[in-house]
């Protein structure tokens, strides 16, 4: 290796250098909220198993202003997470009809459709 070659170093704030890097970092950050909400759901099951009193106490804790604010933040993060990943999904799926690749909109659309259908099923099951 030539000793006189200059090797640049990547600054620690590289993710602030381009808007796309920042959007990527935000997308990655959303998984923390998603993970935390998944843990909350598991905890909800635990409380449900402990009987009606424990369940009501859990529900009351969720209804405090702080808890509602957190759930709203988690909702925004979940939406950003879903939308960004649905947008990327067509590039991961190599589907072809004849000599043409299936349009990205179809694949992303199928994801949104599944989202709506699954949400509707959950709503029906929960008696909403």
């Amino acid at each position: 290796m030539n000793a006189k070659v200059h090797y640049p170093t990547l600054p620690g704030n590289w993710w602030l250098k381009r808007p796309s890097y920042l959007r990527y970092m935000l997308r990655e950050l959303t998984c923390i909220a998603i993970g935390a909400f998944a843990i909350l759901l598991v905890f909800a099951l635990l409380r449900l198993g402990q009987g009606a009193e424990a369940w009501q106490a859990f529900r009351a804790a969720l209804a405090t202003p702080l808890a509602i604010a957190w759930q709203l933040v988690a909702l925004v993060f979940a939406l950003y997470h879903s939308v960004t990943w649905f947008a990327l999904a067509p590039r991961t799926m190599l589907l072809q009809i004849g000599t043409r690749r299936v349009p990205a909109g179809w694949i992303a659309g199928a994801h949104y459709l599944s989202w709506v259908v699954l949400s509707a099923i959950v709503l029906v099951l929960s008696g909403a």
Partner: protein
Amino acid sequence: MNAVSQASPSAGQGARIVTIDVLRYRPEQESTPSWQSYAVPCCEEWTVLDALNHIKDHLDGSLSYRWSCHMAVCGSCGMMVNGNPTLSCKAFMRDLPDRISIAPLANLGVIRDLVVQQNRLLDGLLAVKSWLIPRELPPRDDQYRQTPAQLAKYRPLTMCINCMLCYAACPQVALNEGYVGPAALALAQRYNLDSRDGGALERMQTTASDDGVWECTFIGECSEVCPKHVDPAGAIQQMKLASSLQWLAQRAPGGSSS
């Protein structure tokens, strides 16, 4: 007129003076790169490469950079224009402000001025065996046959011109010296998807290793900057899927444990 003036036409009347800041590196006289400004009278029809040629021919012959075809085919003239990985022959002065910066492609070793090391890509191509590993011997008439649909599957990936803009756009290239990199991985997938090829498992030795596709975090900038719309990021995610399925297949009942 001689060849030099053909290569860099004089801007003539009505030229706009553009200040071009070039990040220079002359290893015989400096240990780190430094900026140098040039006032260049530019035609609006010029590309950034034309402006560089003007500097080289009329202002400062010591400026070093690579170029060849001037038509976005050879992939030689990649550099950072205003911080964006760009083919300088494809960036028109009319789209740029009165002051621009030009630096060598990011994340790569700088040999001199705008000339960067290419070994990252070249070593990567070797590591992933970016060539046809025949699935079987050719038929008796000595030709491999392929349907238009089979060709369409990998054809977009063949458009790569090895310009390395994707390496300059990818922070993972800088963060992990061993990472094979977007273009080499895309060209591995180009052969994986080829109906004549049987080398996907062999390539996984590298592509599914710690320096392969799993280093990619799908930032996606490699595909954004690609002048040939190759979409290395998409190809890498497809290989992650193939690598995962292979991992599962090895552990499934009756699967090979090798």
